């Protein structure tokens, strides 16, 4: 057996420790070791964005990050977005605007949208489309996703 590496990190605000093999991606550890299956695997090579998480605030394809790299990092996954009994405004807007059909890409889109809105609270439609170009959706044609992100920006501005 390959000897595993010990990693200490923070996921969704909670300290987490795990053992992993050097070849394991962050996505594999999140899903298989830690049971955080909200991040989805669509391609395992960084093309579809379904596994997007925030690593120290930056959106990354967790399938392209080795788990051993996240020592000491701050990671946010889709499971960490809603607080108490409340959905995050982006989650709520995705529901109200019917911005999902099958839903497999949805966690990745929401995480990418969060990264954008954290950086730019009032993005143009082009900026939203540019930010989300790394996330593939095959069901919606993107239209309602873009609208949901626009509505999220408005709602988040209203909450400040």
């Amino acid at each position, binding site marked *: 057996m390959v000897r595993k590496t010990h990693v200490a990190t923070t996921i969704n605000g909670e300290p987490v420790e795990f053992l992993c*093999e050097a*070849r394991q991606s962050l996505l594999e550890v999140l*899903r298989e070791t830690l*049971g*955080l*299956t*909200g*991040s*989805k*695997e*669509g*391609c*395992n*090579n960084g*093309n*579809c964005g*379904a596994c997007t998480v925030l690593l120290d605030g930056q959106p990354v394809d967790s399938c392209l990050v080795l788990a051993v790299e996240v020592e000491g990092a701050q990671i946010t*996954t*889709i*499971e960490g*977005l*809603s607080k108490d009994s409340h*959905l995050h405004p982006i*989650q709520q807007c*995705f*529901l*109200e*605007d*019917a911005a*999902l*059909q*099958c*839903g*497999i*890409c*949805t*966690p990745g889109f*929401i995480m990418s949208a969060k990264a954008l809105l954290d950086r730019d609270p009032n993005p143009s*439609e082009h900026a*939203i*489309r*540019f930010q*989300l*170009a*790394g*996330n*593939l*959706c*095959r*069901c*919606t*044609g*993107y*239209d*309602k*996703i*873009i609208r949901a992100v626009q509505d999220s920006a408005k709602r988040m501005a209203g909450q400040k």
Partner: protein
Amino acid sequence: MTPKSEQKKYKVIGTRPIRHDGADKVTGRAVYGADLRLAGIVHGKILRSPHAHAKVKSIDTSAAEKHPGVLAVVTRADMPNLKDKIADLGEGSVNLAHLGANVLAHDKVLYKGHAVAALAAVNPHVAEEALKLIKVDYEVLPSVTWVMDAMKDDAPLLHNDVFTKSMGKRASKPSNVPTHIHFEKGNIEEGFKAADVIVEREFKTASVHQGYIEPHVSTALWNQDGHVTVWTSTQGAFTARAQTAELLQIPVSQVTVVPCEIGGGFGGKIAVYLEPVAAMLSRKCGRPVKMVMTREDVFEGTGPTPGSFMRVKLGATKDGKLVAGEAWLAYDAGAFPGGVIGPGAMCVFSCYELPHAKVDGYDVLDNKPKTQAYRAPGATQAAFACETVIDELAEKLEIDPLEFRLKNAAKEGTRRVDGPVYPRVGLVETLEAAKNSPHWKSKLEGKHRGRGIASGYWFNIGLKSSVAANVNNDGTVSLIEGSTDIGGTRTSIAMQFAETLGITAEAVHPRVGDTDSVGYTDVTGGSRTTFATGLAAHEVALDIQRQMRERAAILWECDASQVQVEDGAYCHKDKRLTFAELAGQLGHTGGPVVGRATVSPEGASNAFGTHLVDVEVDPDTAKVTILRYTAIQDAGRAIHPSYVEGQMQGGAVQGIGWALNEEYVYSDQGRMENASYLDYRMPTALDVPAIETIIVEVPNPAHPYGVRGVGETPIIAPPAAIANAIYAATGVRMTELPMSPPRLWAAMTKGKQS
């Protein structure tokens, strides 16, 4: 358009409630196939053929079996031998012997990516390592991946037991053409004699993939009591059960299929790939076996929709009346017979009143994965050909292309070339809505820009659906339905139930049942779910309403026939109980109330759409940019308008990808060279503009609320609409898909000096 008074008739239908499974899907809690966790689970992987066509001389699995961590290995030899038997899969049928040979290859591999052997190991990494230890001795054979080459007499033969069937006769020599379809209406020679203008063109389209983001995934447990449970991502749990049972040669009662949340299907998740293999691995190792495809597996081993060669000829009189149409269509089926040529041939002229028509269609074997349905299977290719010729005819006749379509549009009473006569349909209404749309009325200015229009038709099937419901004592209802929910159908079904029963959509708790929990239900496909399973839900609501009247009658000591239902409440004389109040009294009026219904609506509900598109073509790179896009469709009745719009937008963008970009690129050795999302390149958010939608409602006379179904039609028109727009922008008629920059550039510069 629907009159306002008509819309007001409904309290729930036409509103936009939040979908019932929404919170689970935006929080990451929804359990898709790959998210399943079971005690003792192990991981299976499949060894796939590196060759497009080869004899499998031997398979040596001994080294893999000895590898530490490997628990089971299976090859063809472990699977039951299957005789030819046609099984109905709801939307299409399959020869089980072929399905078995697709799931694990027999003596030959027929495409690169064809499954050859499988193993289960303690984790996916060990499984992958061990696959490399399986030794397969191949004898490579010549291959063919282009439909017209495969039809040649000297083409490499895929099967020596396939003979062309044509007009009820079987040829004597084996061939790559399993089926020839022929339809005729009127007298084609007379028809073309009456034509003043005739346009005939040839078209080619590449294979494209459905592209669902979730790879195929199945987990199977062959329990020690002999019962097989399969957790899978499928469009139809019951068809997955039937296929799995047949391939394992066990009774269906020995198999339970639990449908997990499904991450897209579009027709590609009906046939089984992994289920029987995972079950056999589980039988060997006694543990649950999970198998997840890689994206490369998905491209190379599943899906695609046929590549095609088509010749379409249409004639019209100088006053703009179509008089005759002839089509010759060859679609590849991939490695096994049974592609989608049938619907393609039925659809090619389905938008037009055509007195004389003739269609020949050919199902053609070649060394590609067995082709599968993809959203309106076969119709998009055919519409690309027909709608481009229509555009050219209109141009030659100097008639506006929209007016030309209106003048010749199919309507109630029009007979399709394959026989059926349309009931009330809404093509004319979509064309009129297009004509009155802000998009069509706007002026398109600027160089290298053009506007295109095209229409599309899909049958929309009925098939079989079952729904059951349990009334809870707080006035809510748990609804159990057999249709897997790919795009919000839990809600569109629950809304019809709520409307009929007079309760709110939120008071209904819809669940998708497994094959032991709900009655037989066909696949989520054919745009049938909101139509047929919705119809079943409506009937369940009527069943519950009948029982609730009986309960009220017990309370009020009157006859059930004296209990009136007003606005969802139950009334007799001055007594009145809301549904919730009455539900609270079930315990002492006879116990729980359970409703159930099964339906099998006959025939098609016939959905038409018309799309408008403005493009700009870069004169230096031949890249096409979509500037504006409008999708118009007759939904019959939009139950949840947001999800109807979503279907229209999603279909349009899939069609845009098919039109401009997507294709299976094959090497000379028949290997797909772009089996990743990066190289296959589906549209991203940055590639498309907002997709405007106009829902037209011409109620379907065969449904209580007028539903037609909406899922498939929107993919049909885009390639033709875009080709017509490109012509308007450049003067170049594109006859080949995709209209990618290299192809368009070649067409734009043809005959010109570089």
